[in-house]
């Protein structure tokens, strides 16, 4: 063991702070990993991770702060340390140590290589001249910008994605710019000849010059060593005061090579499906990794790898098994999309309007399957084509799909036999039949047919089918959450989960309209909270919360609030009882025992809430989340500890369950209970989740509730051991959180599912949808990231500012008046008597 103090230790060392390295940090923090295994991140640039894909926007009025990735404070999270402007220069996987350019050394438990790639500069004379640049980093752009002052002409070597981005940058700097491409067309990898032609037409219309099928042989230089142009293989020359090489990228795998890690034939550090390299405890992700012989130059597969490793290091079982390269983007203002392999041999369907600059080609194989597609100028059919290429739907009438009025979707054209959901093998006809049977929202159809309840990728298509069928039948399409969102809560949940959007403004801008309302705002806030986005009152989230969540207390009829500390399992010490009593006495609060075995303190004014909670926290109590649509209580009987009839320790289990699920936000409140024997004193069968002890283990009941329409819970499984019990509850609750409608309790949700409890059993107990591990991981993340919201609030004085009755006066709210009834103070307005 090396005890040299000069050696810093990182449980997890992340080498590289580019887009993928950053995504890994985000994914790790989401899972609470750094608190258990501290992270050190080493990035060689002076800047924190930024959006490299949109670099040229820096010349279009965007500043670096807008491109910077991750929320503020991400790198200040506990257990995360970011080192910028330094570089790992050597790696020794054997002794688990890395050496920095600055001379420091870091020992590590696990190392994640995310070094990305470097621009490829062809070995031609003159590339060392002043005025020759590559296009990769913010510093590259700064150098280009500063050199461009006084320049008139520019040239970019490379007409791919990166080259066109670079050309756009030079155009925005006001240079007369020429793009030189070795291949016969622009974006040769992603586009076919016609697509390249359409793109070229757009690019040239912007004033850029394009030369294809020609190699660059030399950078011509002046006597004082400045670039003046390019010499080309066909003898032509291009005048350029500034030259950018963007002719491809190479994985930055030197560290791995020198450390003896296995490297792919064409570069890239070889990784397996968990992104582990040939050395134990060393992983590689993103453009530096070579997975199944392939190096991905796109950011999406890199993100998937980052998620995989974060999940893996958090104890999960995720794998990366490859990624398809279907992609759609806007390049120089032109919509461009590519699906599958557009160069594969096969029959082609082409719809083009070359004067208008549109080109759409679909390639189908001998069996009629879509194997590739190119779309330039009009990418609306991208979604359907990507699904076809993935095999999730069988091809519709492709020609109709591509026609200008096809709208890119044409779900009506899909034959009844066409498969829409491959996870559950649901045909379009089944979806249409469900609509005709009276299921009139996508969510209802999903419950009825299971279409879209697997990976979720066909949800938009299902929505279109439902809408089309409703319209055809002359029925109203009313699927939306509210006038601002046309999608349901479940769809919104999937969107937030898939896109990572954590801002209401961005969500309503991209997936809705207008400014939002009292329906969608709290629904979205709840989704953000379920997916773990930190303190619920930070920044914009504060404006989304219902008054209860906004003041972390329950609004009462006179405008005052009530306060409920958590009493896990209903078990409370005499000292805590006394503390609660003293707080109630000192603040003049009315006290009542709740149905969930806790104590509710009524009548607090807003400005009293922080003072009350300071006292309660001091007594070791914490927020009970009575104010939230969230897990409330786990009620229990006294169990085998005292009771003559108890067969299991129901109190211990109830306490453990409550501490596990506390704070989980959900479509509606969730109540649980545990009974220690079949006498059922805890009334578990009237709860969302009820557990009843047996001689051999625990019986699990789900989907019960009290309230206006009492429902008995249904038996899900019998005689479970504790581990299986907890896993089953994890899955059940997370599945509900993910798929229920707004304000829909488990009882309604469960009974709306096709097959009801039988279906729940297959999904929760038998993992029939294959989502069990995902649901458990989501719950593990929630458990790891739980914080008492009142502790968080009191820890930051700036969060206390909102707790006043009036912003311009210390006067207590005079409208809150009290009279005494049965020895306690109640609202004067209550109409006593």
């Amino acid at each position, binding site marked *: 063991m090396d005890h040299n103090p000069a050696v810093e230790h990182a449980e997890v060392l992340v080498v590289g702070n580019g887009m993928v390295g950053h995504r890994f940090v985000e994914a790790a923090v989401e899972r609470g990993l750094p608190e258990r295994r501290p992270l050190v991140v080493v990035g060689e640039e002076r800047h924190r991770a930024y959006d490299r894909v949109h670099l040229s926007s820096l010349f279009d009025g965007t500043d670096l702060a807008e491109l910077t990735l991750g929320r503020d404070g991400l790198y200040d999270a506990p257990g995360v340390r970011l080192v910028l402007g330094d570089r790992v220069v050597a790696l020794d996987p054997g002794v688990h140590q890395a050496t920095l350019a600055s001379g420091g050394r870091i020992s590590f438990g696990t190392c994640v290589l995310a070094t990305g790639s470097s621009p490829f500069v062809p070995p031609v004379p003159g590339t060392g001249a002043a005025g020759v640049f590559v296009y990769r980093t913010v510093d590259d752009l700064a150098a280009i910008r500063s050199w461009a002052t006084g320049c008139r002409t520019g040239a970019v070597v490379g007409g791919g994605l990166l080259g066109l981005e670079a050309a756009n940058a030079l155009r925005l700097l006001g240079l007369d710019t020429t793009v030189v491409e070795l291949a016969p067309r622009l974006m040769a990898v992603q586009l076919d000849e016609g697509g390249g032609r359409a793109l070229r037409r757009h690019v040239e219309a912007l004033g850029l010059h394009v030369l294809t099928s020609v190699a660059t042989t030399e950078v011509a230089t002046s006597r004082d060593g400045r670039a003046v142009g390019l010499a080309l293989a066909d003898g032509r020359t291009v005048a350029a005061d500034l030259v950018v090489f963007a002719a491809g990228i190479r994985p930055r795998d030197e560290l791995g090579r020198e450390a003896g890690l296995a490297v792919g034939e064409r570069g890239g550090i070889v990784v397996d499906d968990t992104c582990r390299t040939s050395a134990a405890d060393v992983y590689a992700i993103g453009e530096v990794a070579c997975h199944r012989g392939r190096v991905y130059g796109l950011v999406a597969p890199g993100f998937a790898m980052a998620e995989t490793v974060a999940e893996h290091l958090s104890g999960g079982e995720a794998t990366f098994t490859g990624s398809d390269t279907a992609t759609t983007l806007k390049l120089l203002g032109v919509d461009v999309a590519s699906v599958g392999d557009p160069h594969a041999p096969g029959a082609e369907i082409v719809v083009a309007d070359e004067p208008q600059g549109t080109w759409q080609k679909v390639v189908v194989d001998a069996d009629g399957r879509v194997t590739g597609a190119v779309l330039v100028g009009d990418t609306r059919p991208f979604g359907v084509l990507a699904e076809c290429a993935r095999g999730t739907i069988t091809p519709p009438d492709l020609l109709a799909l591509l026609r200008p009025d096809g709208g890119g979707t044409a779900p009506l054209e899909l034959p009844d036999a066409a498969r829409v959901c491959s996870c559950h093998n649901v045909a379009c006809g089944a979806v249409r039949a469900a609509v005709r049977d009276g299921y009139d929202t996508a969510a209802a159809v999903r419950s009825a047919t299971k279409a879209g309840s697997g990976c979720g990728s066909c949800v938009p298509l299902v929505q279109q089918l439902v809408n089309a069928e409703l319209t055809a039948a002359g029925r109203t399409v009313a699927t939306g959450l509210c006038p601002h969102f046309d999608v349901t809560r479940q769809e919104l949940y999937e969107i937030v989960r898939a896109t990572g959007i954590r801002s209401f403004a961005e969500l309503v801008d991209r997936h809705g309209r207008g400014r939002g309302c009292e329906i969608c705002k709290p629904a979205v806030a709840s989704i953000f909270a379920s997916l773990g986005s930190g303190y619920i009152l930070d920044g914009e989230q504060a404006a989304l919360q219902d008054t209860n969540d906004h*003041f972390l207390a329950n609004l009462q009829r006179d405008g005052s609030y009530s306060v409920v500390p958590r009493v896990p399992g209903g078990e409370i010490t005499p000292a805590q009882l006394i503390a609660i009593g003293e707080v109630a006495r000192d603040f003049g609060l009315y006290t009542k025992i709740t149905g969930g075995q806790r104590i509710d303190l009524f009548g607090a004014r807003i400005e009293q809430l922080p003072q009350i909670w300071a006292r309660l926290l001091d007594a070791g109590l914490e927020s009970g989340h009575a104010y939230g649509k969230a897990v409330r209580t786990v009620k229990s009987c006294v169990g085998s500890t005292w009771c003559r009839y108890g067969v299991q320790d129901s109190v211990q289990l109830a306490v453990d369950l409550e501490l596990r699920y506390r704070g989980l936000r959900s479509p509606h409140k969730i109540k649980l209970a545990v009974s220690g024997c079949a006498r059922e004193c805890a009334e578990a069968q009237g709860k969302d989740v009820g557990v009843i002890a047996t001689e051999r283990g625990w019986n699990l009941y789900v989907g019960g509730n009290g309230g206006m329409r009492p429902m008995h819970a249904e038996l899900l499984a019998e005689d479970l051991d504790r581990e299986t019990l907890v896993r089953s509850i994890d899955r059940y609750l997370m599945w509900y959180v993910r798929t229920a409608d707004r304000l829909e309790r488990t009882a309604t949700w469960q009974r709306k599912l096709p097959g009801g409890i039988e279906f729940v059993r297959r999904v929760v107990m038998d993992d029939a949808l294959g989502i069990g591990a995902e649901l458990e991981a989501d719950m593990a993340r929630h458990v790891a990231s739980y914080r008492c919201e009142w502790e968080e609030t009191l820890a930051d004085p700036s969060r206390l500012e909102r707790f006043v009755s009036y*912003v311009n*006066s210390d006067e207590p709210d005079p409208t809150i008046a009290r009279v005494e009834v049965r020895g306690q103070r109640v609202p004067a307005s209550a109409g006593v008597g």
Partner: protein
Amino acid sequence: MSMVSAVDRVAAARAGSEWTRVCPASRLTPERGVAALVDGDPVAVFLLSTGELAAIDNRDPCSGASVLSRGLVGEVDGAPTVASPMYKQRFELRTGRCLDDPGVSVRVHDVRLDDGFVVVRRGG
């Protein structure tokens, strides 16, 4: 009240009410309200994401509780609204009209920025 111009004072005198300084503009959260005392009356003041300010009675006529400042801000046909946190009736912030109960409305008050402060003057 040195922040308030002579013109405003004249206007205020005519309306029978002075401008009351409520809080620095930075104290407001976009799309959220605060309560303030204006000439002894509770007033709810809102900042919208468009930068527009609005002020109405804080008292919710449907419940009788002084709570409208704590409602969620929304939008109905482009017009900003607040939904009472008590029983969810929506009020138009510009007119005070209750959208869910035609017979009910709240008073609308004048509100504007003055040298970085929000100032309110009671309406009729």
